C-alpha cells in the first residue's frame, strides 16, 4: 500500500488535510484577495457580518475588515507554527540524539538540563521570555521554540537508546564508521517517523501558544494575528460577538486539522502499530 493510501484510510486525517490545505490557500491568497493592509480602517466600526458587500465577516472596533484580518492572520499563524517547530527540532533532535547514543554521564547531564526546562510551566516561561525580549515575531518564535523542544529531546533519546544496540548499528561500528556518521546516517533516518508525527502536533501547539500570547497583549504589535484579534475583541465581546468568534473558529479548525493530520501520519508511518491498535 502506498503511503498516501495508508494515510487516506484514516477518514479524519483526510478531512484534516483538506482543512489544512484551505487554510494554507487562505494564507497564500490573502495578499491577492485583500491587497490592502488588514490594519487599514476602511468602514464604519462594528459592522455586523454579511451586512455590507465586501465585508462578509463585518468590521472590528476600528472599522478594519475582519475577513482581511483573518486571511492575513492565517499566514502569521502558520508561519509562527512552522518556524518555531523547526527551531524546536533543531534544538531537541541533536540533544536527544547525543544523549541517547552516548548514554552515561553525557546522558545524565543533558537530561537534567532538559528536565530543568520541563519543570517550568511552558506558558509561564514563554510569557517571561517574550516580556524580556520585547514582543516581536522573532522573539515569539524563539520563546515558543525554547519551551517546546524538551519533548522532542526525550522522544529522540528514547528512540536512540532502543536502536543503538541493533545489529545494523553494530555492523556499522565494525566497519569503522565514526559516531557522527552512525548517528546521522544509520539511526536518525529510522527515528524520523515519530519525529514527524510529533512535529505536526507541535505546530498546532505553537499556534495555540502564539494566540495565547497575543491574546494577553504580548503579540508583535505590527502583525495581525488571530490571537491578537481575539484579545482586542475581548473588551467588546458583549457588543460584537463576531470579532472574537471568527478568529476563534479559525484557531480551532487549524489546531484540529493539524491533530487529525498528525494522527493520519502516525497511521501511515507506523502501519504495524496502527493495525495492532
Amino acid at each position: 500500500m502506498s503511503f498516501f493510501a495508508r494515510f487516506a484510510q484514516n477518514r479524519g486525517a483526510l478531512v484534516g488535510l483538506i482543512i489544512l490545505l484551505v487554510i494554507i490557500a487562505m494564507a497564500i491568497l490573502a495578499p491577492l484577495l485583500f491587497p490592502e493592509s488588514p490594519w487599514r480602517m476602511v468602514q464604519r466600526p462594528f459592522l455586523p457580518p454579511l451586512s455590507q458587500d465586501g465585508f462578509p465577516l463585518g468590521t472590528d472596533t476600528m472599522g478594519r475588515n475582519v475577513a482581511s484580518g483573518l486571511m492575513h492572520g492565517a499566514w502569521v499563524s502558520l508561519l509562527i507554527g512552522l518556524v518555531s517547530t523547526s527551531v524546536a527540532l533543531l534544538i531537541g533532535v541533536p540533544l536527544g540524539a547525543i544523549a541517547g547514543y552516548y548514554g552515561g554521564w553525557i546522558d545524565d547531564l543533558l537530561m537534567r538540563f532538559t528536565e530543568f526546562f520541563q519543570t517550568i510551566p511552558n506558558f509561564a516561561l514563554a510569557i517571561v521570555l517574550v516580556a524580556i525580549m520585547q514582543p516581536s515575531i522573532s522573539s515569539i518564535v524563539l520563546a515558543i521554540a525554547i519551551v517546546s523542544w524538551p519533548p522532542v529531546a526525550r522522544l529522540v533519546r528514547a528512540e536512540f537508546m532502543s536502536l543503538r544496540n541493533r545489529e545494523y548499528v553494530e555492523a556499522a561500528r565494525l566497519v569503522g564508521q565514526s559516531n557522527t556518521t552512525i548517528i546521522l546516517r544509520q539511526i536518525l533516518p529510522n527515528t524520523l517517523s515519530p519525529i514527524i508525527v510529533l512535529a505536526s502536533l507541535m505546530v498546532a501547539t505553537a499556534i495555540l501558544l502564539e494566540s495565547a500570547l497575543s491574546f494577553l497583549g504580548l503579540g508583535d504589535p505590527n502583525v495581525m494575528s488571530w490571537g491578537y484579534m481575539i484579545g482586542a475583541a475581548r473588551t467588546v465581546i458583549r457588543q460584537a460577538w463576531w470579532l472574537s468568534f471568527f478568529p476563534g473558529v479559525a484557531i480551532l479548525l487549524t489546531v484540529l486539522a493539524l491533530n487529525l493530520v498528525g494522527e493520519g501520519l502516525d497511521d501511515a508511518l507506523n502501519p504495524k502499530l496502527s493495525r495492532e491498535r
Partner: protein
Amino acid sequence: MKTPLALAISAAALAFATAALADDPKSGGTVNTIIQPEPPGLVLGMVQNAPTRTVAGNIYEGLLRYTTDLEPMPQLAESWDVSEDGRTYTFHLREGVTWHDGEPFTADDVVFSADVFHRELNPSARAVLQHVESIEATDDHTVVFTLTQPFGPFLLSFEAGTFTMVPEHLYAGTDFRDNEHNDHPIGTGPFKFANWERGTVIELVKNDDYYEEGLPYLDGVNWHIIPDGASRAVSFENETIDVLPSGTVENFDIPRLAAMDNVCMTEEGHEYFSPFAMLWMNNREGPTADKRFRQAVMYAMDREFAKDVLWNGLGNVPLSAFGSNARFQNDDLEPYDHNPDRARELLEEMGYDGEEITILPLPYGETWTRWAEAVQQNLREVGINVSTQATDVGGWNQRLGDWDYDLAFTYLFQYGDPALGISRTYLSDNIAKGSPWNNVEGYENERVDELFNEAATAFPDAEREKLYREVQEILHEDVPVGWLMELGFPTLYRCDVQNLVTSGVGVNDGFKDAWLDR
C-alpha cells in the same frame, strides 16, 4: 461632528438641569461609588495620586473651589481681595469652621499648611510658593499672601487637591509622614473619614457640624475598590454602584452603560485637570527632528476619527498647544486637519528617505493600544515607515526618561492655566533626563522661553493674553509635540443622584452638594 452619543449627553444634561430646578434637595441616603485604583493614602498634600484627590477632596478643603469655567468660588475663604499691583492677596476666612475633631479652624492653620506643610511635602504647591514672599495671619480670620512679583495663575492654586488645609494642632512639630493621624485624616470638609477596609471599601460619613447650613445632604459615601474593569462595569449594571467616576470603566463599555435606563452621564467636572493627550516627537534626532516631518505627522493623523471611534465622540480636538479649557487659547490658528496629501508633500519636500521610526503606545489599556494602531496606520498611509513597540509602564517611563524613542503617546493635566500645566512641556530649562513628565521632546526656542516666562508674571491678564497668543503661533508652526486630543473623561451616575458635579474637579469635591432623589 456631533455623534448620537454626544447629543444624548446634551439632552440628558438639559433634562438634568430642569429636574434640579424643579425639586428641593432631600437629605439622607448613602451613595456607593468606585475608586480605582486603591489610593496609597488619604492625606492630601502628602499623597498626590489622582485617587487620593478624588476621595480626600470630600474630607479636606482648600480656601477656594472652582466652577466648571474655573472661576473661583468661596470655600474656606469667604472673600478675597487682590491689590492693584497684583502682588498682595488677602483672604477673609469663614468664621465658625471647626475641624472634624472639634477644634476651631483659624488663620494659623492656613499659614501652617501653606508655609510649612506643603512647602515641605508637596512639589506642585512648592512650584507656586516660589512666587510667594510671605504669608501672614493678620488676625484669626485674615491671611495675607505677598508675592515677589505678579503671578497670573495664583488664584487658581487653591484647589483642595493642590493646596489643602491641614490641622496645625495635629501636625505642627511632628514628623508629618509618621504622624498617627495619617490613618484617620481630619479635615474641615462635608464628610468625615469613618473606615477603610483595605482592598474593599473606604467609608465616609456625614459631618453633622459642617459650617454650611443643611449640607451635606447625604449620610455618607462608600468608595468601593474593585480591581477588575469588567466587574466594575457589572457592579454598575446591577445597581450596587450609583456613581462611576471617570476612568473607572473601559471606553468601549461606556455607550452600553450610558444607554441604560436611569443612567445619566456628564462630561463636566474635569475642566481643572483637562487631560491633554499628546504625541511626544523626538526633536533631537531622526526624521522627527525636522519640523516638516512633525507637521506631516499632524496632517497625516485623523484625530476626529480617534475621537469618534475610541473616545465615543467625547472630548475636543485642539488647534495647538493650548486646550479649550486652558485660558488664553488663540483660536485664529489654522487647524491641522486630516490631510494626507499635504503630509506627503511635506515629506517629499524634506526628502524623507523611508527611515524607520517607532511608536511607543501608552500602556494604560485597550483604548490606548487601539489608538496607537490607528495612528500607525495613518502614518503608513502617507508613506512613513513606522512600527510599534509594546512596553509596560516601567519600560515606557524609562524609554521616555532616556529620550530613547521617536514617537510616544502620553497625556498631561493642564491645571487651568498655561503657567501651571502647559509651559512645562516647552520651556528649555525643563529639559532633564530621567523624567517622562518634563520637556521630553527636547524642544529649544529662546523666543518661546522668553514669552512663557514673561507671560507667567505679566499683569494684568490682557498683557498675558498678548504674550500667550504669540507663543501659540510659534508652537503651532514648530509642532514640538503632536497635539492629539483633550480627553473627555465622562462621569456616569444614576439619574436620581442629583447635583453631583458642581465644580471644575467633579466628584473630587462634588458629594458636598449631591443629594438622592429616592
